């Protein structure tokens, strides 16, 4: 079968999928975009290692990573602007790895939007159909539809330089939707905008994507953006996927320490597994652990977020809370929506895993911060208002949820 026929079939399928009535169970279950075992090298440097993921029809996947993590390269490989070293890109069941960008039918929304400066809004949107030699009437109708979809009817005769950033972005999206793309790729879509516009626009784009039901892949380094935009999020670190899952999973059940710290502040303490519980200093946190993964006496890390910490002045531990330790409040600071406290944990019994004399240690935000035995806690405003806490006071520290990760680097001290 020729490439053109393949394209036509894929396009036809996409048109059907646009109509909710025909978007049957088969279509929704189908993989719209797959990246299989992709790796990439620039010279001798490996920038991507064995990247694989699927995007379902209508799904939004966010590739989240720091700059230099390789996320942009993944996007460029899907678009055909970069060739992978190994692996395949599959769009609606069609292997496009060998195809040049122009034959793939993907829509790329560049960070700079890349609107054609000498063309009006109309001409920009109609460009994809014009080069496909469609009839004038058809082009005009499609452009009109898209202009109303992105609400830019009154700007149709303007040039890109006369539009705001948000409007330009909508033109860029409409320009790709015109030729019914297999998948939409957004490269740092909100990087060039101020915070307020950014929040507003990403909600707008989310709503627009739900309307057109085209699968989308976003690239960002902003974790808040990733959690809000994505049906699923893939955390990319040094050229490989650290974890892929729903925003809830990524945030609450991080698979690695990197994921935990990249997605926000995280407290990390070391502990030892003792039948169905983890011993952290003096505390015993009961938890259901995978017996295959964690053996008795194994050293582990427990990770919990500042908002998982519950503080009280009495020793009463509420149901569902795990008592951790007692602590002294080192610092209380007001950071707008909530209150932030730094706590010095009381040193307990000697930890079997500790390599230094401290029973606890911590990371917050960056792994480099790991040095003291303090942890960070946050309290919502109502609680902070009702129960005042001041620096120097002693409190009982409990945590409401936590994640246990293996501590591969260290072997337990046998006693």
């Amino acid at each position, binding site marked *: 079968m020729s490439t053109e026929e393949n394209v036509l079939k894929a396009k036809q399928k996409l048109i059907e999928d646009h109509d909710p009535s025909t978007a049957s169970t088969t279509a929704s279950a189908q993989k719209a975009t797959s990246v299989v075992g992709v790796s990439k090298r620039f010279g001798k440097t490996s920038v991507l290692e064995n990247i694989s993921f699927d995007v379902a029809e209508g799904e939004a996947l966010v590739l989240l990573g720091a700059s230099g993590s390789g996320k942009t390269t993944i996007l460029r490989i899907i*678009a*055909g*602007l970069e060739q992978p070293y190994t692996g395949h890109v599959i769009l609606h069941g069609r292997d496009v790895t060998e195809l*040049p*960008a*122009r*034959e*793939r*039918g*993907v*829509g*790329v929304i*560049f*960070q*700079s939007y*890349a609107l*054609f*400066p*000498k*063309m009006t809004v109309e001409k920009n949107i109609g*460009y*994809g159909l*014009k*080069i*496909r030699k469609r009839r004038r009437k058809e082009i005009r109708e499609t452009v009109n539809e898209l202009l109303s979809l992105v609400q830019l009817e009154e700007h149709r005769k303007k*040039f*890109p*330089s006369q539009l705001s950033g948000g409007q330009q972005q909508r033109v860029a999206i409409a*320009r*790709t939707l015109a*030729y019914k793309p297999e998948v939409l790729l957004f490269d740092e879509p909100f990087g060039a905008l101020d915070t307020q516009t950014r929040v507003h626009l990403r909600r707008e784009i989310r709503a627009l994507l739900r309307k057109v039901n085209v699968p989308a892949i976003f690239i960002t380094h902003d974790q808040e953006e990733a959690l809000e935009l994505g049906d699923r999020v893939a955390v990319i670190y040094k050229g490989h996927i650290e974890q892929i899952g729903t925003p809830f999973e990524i945030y609450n059940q991080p698979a690695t320490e990197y994921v935990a710290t990249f997605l926000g502040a995280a407290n990390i303490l070391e502990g030892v597994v003792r039948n169905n519980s983890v011993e952290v200093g003096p505390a015993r946190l009961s938890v259901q652990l995978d017996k295959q993964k964690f053996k008795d006496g194994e050293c582990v890390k427990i990770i919990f977020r500042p908002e998982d910490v519950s503080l009280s002045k009495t020793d009463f531990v509420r149901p569902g809370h795990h008592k951790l330790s007692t602590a002294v409040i080192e610092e209380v600071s007001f950071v707008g929506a909530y209150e932030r406290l730094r706590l010095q944990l009381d040193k307990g019994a000697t930890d079997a895993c500790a390599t230094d004399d401290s029973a606890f240690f911590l990371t917050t935000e960056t792994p480099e911060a790991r040095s003291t035995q303090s942890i960070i806690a946050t309290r919502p405003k109502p609680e902070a208002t009702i129960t005042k806490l001041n620096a120097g006071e002693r409190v009982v520290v409990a945590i409401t949820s936590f994640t246990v990760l293996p501590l591969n680097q260290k072997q337990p001290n046998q006693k």
Partner: protein
Amino acid sequence: MMLPLVFLPLVSIFVFGMRNGLDKFWGALTAQEAVFALKLSMATSFWATVFNVLFGLFAAYVMSRYNFWGRNALIVTISLPTAIPTAVAGFALLLLWGPYGTLGRFLAPHGIQVMFTAGAIILANIFVTFPLAFGVIKPVFDTMNRSLEEASATIGATRWQTFWYVTLPSLRGAIVSGALLTFARAVGEFGSTILVSGNLAGRTQTAPLYIFAKFNEGQIEAANAIAIVLALFSFLIFSVLFFARDWLDVD
């Protein structure tokens, strides 16, 4: 300072040219040889411009899109004619294409004579205006946003479509100003043309050569009439370049 150095010489051309009345001026201008010289200048400059704009466009594209060994050396070579005295350029062309020249000597037995023809004037014009269009177009290529071309490719355009619809419109201003510069420079060319053309009145005599010849013959009025035309012409091109900049760069 500007007055005696720049402005007064220009004024004097017009003052002297018109001194004997418009009739005389018009007569000198419409003399057969004068008209021929002007036409020849326009025609040879036109072809040199066409060639150099096309070549400049191509060279600029290659030099800014591809990185290859010897690229900088090539850029310097392309730009070299700016620094070479035009008489030297004309002399070099004679040595190459003349009846006893390196290449010309093989062509002469076949009755092909390159020098002392209109073709020779075009060759000389091409040589001396070679870097002008290239020099104007290349910086535009260098600063052009690459993602425009990438966007065009992902939308489905072939390379040619991308060049025609996306790249070329962004170059419009540079191409027009490059062409005007080249043309203006070629029309005024003297040093190389006087060597390669043979300066045959009514056959290979361009407008600047005509001025020189008439001046030597003592026909100041004839020389002056053409001088006025060339001065006005340069002024026109400069005005276009200056005032049309907004239009050329419109987004």
